[in-house]
């Protein structure tokens, strides 16, 4: 199963419509949390809101998360050890107030378990890459290893 989420604050029809078009070819169920969008999906199960506990359960079953580049979603996927494919919202298309999601994907691309599709044309190949990822969750990113080591040093009052 693939879970798609654009958060609950703003719609993101460009991502939802593109995933709806791809859904029949993915060979597994696709469930989408569409937020306040206006596009009505036909090929995937779509809900405006999914309560946190249920979302967590769905995340546990999912093989891949496809989402807007919201840091909260990235963190949840990381905690659940699920690969996540991010497509950034764009301010020039009225999808957000500013382009901070473009900055976010620029900085997160390449970290373990995080894939980026710059726009809808890149979704299909990136989904295939995401589904092919195995065993990455055991690899902590170099930046995470660094933070864990520094935290242990601080707690034990060793030099940083």
């Amino acid at each position: 199963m693939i879970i798609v989420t654009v958060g609950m604050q703003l719609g993101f029809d460009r991502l939802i419509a593109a995933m709806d078009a791809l859904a029949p070819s993915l060979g597994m169920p696709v469930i989408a949390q569409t937020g306040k969008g206006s596009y009505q999906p036909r090929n995937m199960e779509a809900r405006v809101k999914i309560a946190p506990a249920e979302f967590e359960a769905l995340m546990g079953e999912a093989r891949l998360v496809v989402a807007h580049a919201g840091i909260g979603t990235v963190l949840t996927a990381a905690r659940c050890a699920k690969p996540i494919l991010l497509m950034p919202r764009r301010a020039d298309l009225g999808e957000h107030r500013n382009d901070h999601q473009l900055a976010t994907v620029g900085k997160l691309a390449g970290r373990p378990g995080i894939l980026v599709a710059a726009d809808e044309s890149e979704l299909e190949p990136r989904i295939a890459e995401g589904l092919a990822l195995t065993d990455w969750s055991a690899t902590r990113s170099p930046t995470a290893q660094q933070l864990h080591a520094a935290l242990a040093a601080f707690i034990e009052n060793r030099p940083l």
Partner: protein
Amino acid sequence: MGKDSIRVLAVASGGGHWEQLMLLRPTLAQYDIRFATTEPAVAAQHGIADVESLPDCNQNMPVRSALCALVALWVVLKHRPKVILSTGAAPGFFCILAGRLIGARTLWIDSVANGEELSMCGKLSKRFAHQCWTQWEHLAGPDRPRYFGAVL
């Protein structure tokens, strides 16, 4: 003294702040760790039953902030941790302030969501916490905040 005898209080508000604390949990679990949060139900979902509950607050809620500061002081006095750390937000900052009163060593880890500038509590923590860390290298200063990696 063994690692598991170092008492640590780790504080995070619900949502993204808590997610980040949970990503640090494998390291925190080596110590005598205590947790505090504004959403104990979420902590219970993560298998942490004996979590301390803090009232949520922010800079626009003066009365609730005062209440939160008192509860934070109570929690800190109850556990007497050697180390207090928070990944945000205001309730965690109050625990750090309370920690200064009992001589705890304190650490603020600013949220990875703050990629453009430090949060307000992060800015205050540059002064009031022993250490203030950002998770974005380009935000690190010559003195503070410092950068030692990120949860992701």
